[in-house]
């Protein structure tokens, strides 16, 4: 197991280097010169040159790349070019609000989707199954933006059940007051596709010989579904859930903007609008690293869930 983990960690190095090169060249050739934005309404060539010098974008590419690698190794991406706030501080303060919304969405949507998927898979082909699938298809066809606009108008403004927008001081206030509607809307969007997907995973298992054998041996339906079927369906479900996890680092941009949640998603968009390279590269690197680590964790979890899995 240790050898496997070491090998996988070692394999991350070239992947990360690839990401570093990609982000570096994309920013330098496509990202635009930030000096012209930072210079303000009226600037002259000397001022532009002074800004470029201070940002370090006047350095040869190899030197800039070296500094970038140094930043990754030290974890110090410097300060935002437009606000002067430390990049580490941006992550520390903005990640909390994003997670307050996204973790409940991820946990609840996974649990709810699994329960519904188990139910409809069990009665597959029935009217209930077909109705749920139609509802899921309709739900999936509507964009998150529509859910947000309508949900904010109806539930927050017209019915007054939730605040229209805002963010408070305490975790409990944020979780139960301000994040409640964004979480609800996130669930409405997320449950439908996951239910369909998990139903497929479960149906694949239900049709397996071992299920028939279990039933023939007189194992109860509950035990068959919850212990045998679900356990085997968990591997693709875990893969799906794990794929979502790196997304937590970039937040839910639309929810954060509409509900004025000071999360990392809003910050990333602001950074892109302002050509704020230190923030953009930090986010990209963190997401890449998180993706690789989570993939490794997923593989380890397969082994935990199903001892037959062999890690090579």
């Amino acid at each position, binding site marked *: 197991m240790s050898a496997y983990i070491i090998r996988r960690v070692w394999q991350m190095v070239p992947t990360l280097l690839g990401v570093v090169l990609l982000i570096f060249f994309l920013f330098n050739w*496509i*990202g*635009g*010169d*930030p*000096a*012209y*934005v*930072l*210079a*303000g*309404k*009226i*600037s*002259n*060539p000397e*001022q*532009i040159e*002074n*800004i470029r010098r*201070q940002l370090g974008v006047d350095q040869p590419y190899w030197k800039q790349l070296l500094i970038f690698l140094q930043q990754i190794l030290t974890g110090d991406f410097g*300060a935002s070019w*437009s*606000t*002067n*706030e430390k990049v580490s501080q*941006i992550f520390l*303060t903005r990640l909390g609000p994003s997670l307050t919304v996204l973790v409940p969405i991820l946990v609840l949507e996974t649990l709810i989707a699994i329960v519904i998927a188990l139910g409809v898979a069990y009665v597959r082909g029935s009217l209930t199954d077909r109705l749920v699938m139609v509802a899921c298809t309709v739900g999936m066809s509507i964009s998150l933006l529509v859910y947000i*606009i309508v949900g*904010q*108008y109806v539930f*927050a*403004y017209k019915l*007054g059940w939730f*605040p*229209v*927008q*805002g*963010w408070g001081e305490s975790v409990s206030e944020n979780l139960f007051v301000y994040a409640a509607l964004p979480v609800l809307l996130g669930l409405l969007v997320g449950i439908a596709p996951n239910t369909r997907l998990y139903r497929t995973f479960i149906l694949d298992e239900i049709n397996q010989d071992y299920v028939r054998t279990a039933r023939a041996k007189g194992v109860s339906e509950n035990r068959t579904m919850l212990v045998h079927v679900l356990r085997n369906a968990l591997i693709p479900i875990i893969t799906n859930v794990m794929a979502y996890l790196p997304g937590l680092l970039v937040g839910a941009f639309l929810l954060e*903007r*509409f*509900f*004025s*949640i*000071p999360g990392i998603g*809003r*910050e990333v968009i*602001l950074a892109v609008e302002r*050509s704020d390279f230190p923030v953009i590269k930090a986010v990209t690197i963190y997401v890449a690293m998180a993706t690789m680590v989570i993939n490794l964790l997923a593989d380890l979890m397969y082994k935990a869930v199903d001892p037959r899995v062999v890690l090579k």
Partner: protein
Amino acid sequence: MKTMARLLLAALLLGALKFALAADPNKVLHWVLPRAETGFDPARVHDYYSGSIVENIFERLVTYDYLARPSRLVPETAEAMPQVADAGRTYTFRIKPGIHFAPDPIWKGKTRELVAEDYAYTLKRFVDPALRSPWKFLLEGKVLGLDALAERAAKSGGKFDYDAKLPGLEIIDRYTLRIRLTETDYNFAHILAMPTFGAVAREVIEAYAEDTNAHPVGTGPYLLKKWVRSSKLLLEANPHYRGFTWNFQPGLEAGDQALVAAMKGKRMPQIGSIEVSVIEEDQSRWLAFQNGELDLLNMEGPLAPIALPNNQLSAELQKRKVRLNRIVDPEIMYTYWNMQDPVVGGMSKEKIALRRAMAMAYNVAEEIRVIHNGQAVAAEYLVPPGVVGHDAAFQSNIRFDPAGARALLDRFGYRKGADGWRTQPDGKPLVVRYSSRPDSQGRQFDELWAKSLESVGIRIDIHKDKFPELLKAEKLCKLQMRTGAWIADYPDGDNFLQLLYGPNTGQSNNACARIPEFDELYRKSKTLPDSPERNRLYQRMMRSMEAHTPWRLGVSRYRNMLIQPHVQGYKKHPILHAEWLYMDLEQKNGR
């Protein structure tokens, strides 16, 4: 003796408290920023929304009268308006004694008095290369000795000598600052009235050098109590602010008399705290305002027609006694052609005719209806309404006239080829490249300009690029045609006319225009204060601009401020960003 001293101290404390008590801590104003702020170091930040906070924390030597229109300068920390001598080259300001900075830990429980040296330090900061102030251009080449100081710093590896004595920044005594300029500038006091020139204390800036954006300490009416970046701010009335009695004179505009009646004689500021929320989405701001979570709202964007059908308050808002205060922003939107471009630039009659025809093909009324949802007026003059030098009677010669445009093109040799598109007089294909940002408004302008030019037979090539790249190309005179906007830094026509001054090419003159006649008139206008003589020069410059057509004037946009019924004394000022100091709130149950 000790008792006397205690009594004196008590009397002083009571005096200070009297001003502090004017602001009622129960009065909380709920304000909104539609874009995230970037910080509060006046010399560093350049976005409008950070400026609105800076304006209330720091004080300038001069500011604007709240009700006077067009805007009129009045003293802020200065005792009186500056003595202007030497044909607008020397400005002498005397600061009111007894003004103190807000408390800060670096002063260990005490505060410090504002002195002339603070303004000298504040001005020097703008040219410090290490600061890379986006407002440097306002002082560049203006104050005697300041540029040389910046150059020395640049040569010595960035070490800026803040202790250097400059001929242009002379400290006469503790409270008197004399500023000597390199040349006549009657607008210099306007420049110093910008929020960015609010006085900072050197020891505060040096103590928080790592992040001056996060530690604003000024002498203004409010101080920053709490800041959750890009989300929320809490400002409280500065207990050391000296206050004043509301005594502004009504202007001629409707509502001024009632506003004066409601506010006259009140000790200011009245509002104890300001809660500022950053709400970026139009719908969220609109619903929050309707829910009573915001006290004022600038109604802009696609939702404006809902709140203001036919440019009137909706019946629902009227029923709720919401008020509307509407001004034309001191800005102009315009489309320029690069005067150095081989296809559309140049001063030959053919090139002028081409630009004129394109200008005549463009329908500003359609721009107002489609792009601005009716929330704009056509700009007829280079100087927008509300800005000194504006001529409300002026009628632009360039009108929407596609038939006239086609005739003009025919006359100057831009004939249609076999493919139906016009060619250049020498027979080469004519393709005009319009540049814009890849956003929704950019696309709307693309479509409108494409429709306009194609209607007269000119083929258009739409070029999309990121904002920084467009700016870069613009400064290098590499774009052919683009739509831009300019909002007043200060309310004087000079701030707009300089946009076409030849030597400003590569800086603010995006058309890269060098029109000798215009430049000569501009130079002459710079030597004059606001006067009928200067206004006549402005009119001639406007006609010169039309004659050479480096620009097509577009619109000036409305600012629609929706006001909740309990807000008193509010009137949108065209230049001031946030008027909290002049307002009051009627106490409501449950607020």
